[in-house]
């Protein structure tokens, strides 16, 4: 369960202020995946960061029960001079999971072959993405955060990663930001529309999509 209680967050960027959420109280029940909808710049990614815990609220509080992932497929943390394996070890240590198990899992999943032991700076972007996706899949979370799912690799790899992710979701939930309504319908059962600092929760993702689309038509 994740719950926001009278949560307020204003973002200031180079003198521009933007109210992301204004005195919002909402509960995300466990067991249902959530799609986050909103126009460009509404603050969907910021909200995801608040849920993850990498951004603090200005006022109010957030209660999290369960393990929450970093954004799926995040690869910014890979140190170019370290090998793929060393980078995986680091993530395993941070999350307190068995390092050898995770290293073995990612080795098999990411299909990097000899490159797994080579510095990450020698990787192609596809290889990096595969490594990142493998690490995300190798640790069990209660909530997976997804900011625009991006398919990586060739057709086979795509199929495999989709299948693995769907399997994960039998025990975990996803909180997903996407502009593709098809993807949202595919992964999420419920939805949240973010508009003018207000968050509205809909039990049915289709309803959320409908509201979002009518919002988009109004301006």
């Amino acid at each position, binding site marked *: 369960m994740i719950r926001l209680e009278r949560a307020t967050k204003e973002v200031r960027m180079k003198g521009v202020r933007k109210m992301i959420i204004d005195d919002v109280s909402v509960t995300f029940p466990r067991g249902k995946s959530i799609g986050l909808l909103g126009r460009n710049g509404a603050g969907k990614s910021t909200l995801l960061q608040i849920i993850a815990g*990498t951004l603090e609220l200005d006022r109010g509080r957030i209660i999290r029960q369960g393990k929450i992932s970093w954004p799926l497929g995040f690869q910014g943390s890979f140190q170019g001079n370290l090998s793929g394996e060393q980078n995986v070890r680091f*993530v395993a240590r941070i999350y307190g999971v068995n390092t050898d198990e995770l290293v073995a899992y990612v080795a098999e999943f990411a299909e990097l072959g000899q490159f797994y032991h080579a510095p990450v700076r020698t990787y192609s972007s596809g290889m990096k993405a595969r490594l990142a996706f493998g690490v995300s899949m190798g640790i069990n979370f209660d909530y997976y955060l997804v900011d625009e799912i991006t398919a990586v690799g060739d057709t086979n790899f795509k199929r495999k990663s989709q299948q693995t992710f769907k399997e994960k979701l039998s025990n975990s939930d996803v909180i997903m930001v996407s502009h593709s309504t098809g993807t949202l319908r595919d992964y999420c059962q419920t939805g949240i529309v973010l508009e003018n600092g207000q968050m509205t929760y809909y039990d049915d993702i289709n309803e959320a999509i409908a509201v979002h689309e009518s919002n988009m038509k109004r301006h």
Partner: protein
Amino acid sequence: MQAIRALKPDRLYLLAVSVRGMPLNHLTTHLRIVSAFVIREIATRYGRSPGGYVWALLEPVAFIGLMSVLLGAIGRLPALGTSFTLFYATGYLAFNMYKGMEGYLASAISGNKSLMSYPKVSPFDAIVARLILQGMTSCVVAWVILYAALWTTSQPVTIQWSCIVEAIAFAWIMALGVALGNTVLFFKFPLYQKIFDIVMRPLFLLSGVFYVPAHMPHPFSDILLANPVTQIVVLFRDGFYVQHGDTGLDMPYLIAISAGLLFFGMLLFTLFPVARARD
């Protein structure tokens, strides 16, 4: 008790968890993350040069050793003792306990910015990891150099460990305070970073590394001794040289400055969480 009863059942559960297990859990999590950072820093600090972290020891040992021998060979009699090598080494090591730590800590966040995207990682973990790593490294470096430098003096040296330990502690506390504050200020005011670098460049000359500040003519000695880094150098040298008369050491001043810097550094770091701000 009334307050607890007023809570909803699930709140009560949260309260019980936080009382029974969570603080310890948090501590072990942080320790685990800090150790992961230490291992990562060791692997990446000298990532592309062959030999890796060995350079973190060799570089300062070679630099300080060479400078000490060179300056010693010029043949001047040091202001204290008989060996200029020992005199210079004690001064420079004390200075670097502060300066080396401060520089390394100030880039702890900016150098690990991408890792702040992991919700599990707290920005302070990166700083603690560097504090531990740099602390251990500089102690090994100091030990190697001083051990060698002690051979160059003809006088017997009585080492006073309390002075040495205190000087190192003050140096690190001050470095931590300045670095925490600068993490925020460098981020908010890039121009300040340039100014700070320029202003701090003569610090080496003004910290009593190759002279004794108390021996300087009157107005200068007071100015030099007002520099807290000079105080650290004086205190560190007290651990090696028995001196008669006033060395200019002002412990209350040193304590007040280090505590003050640490306080303001932590205050800024807490009030402005820049570690995860977007650039």
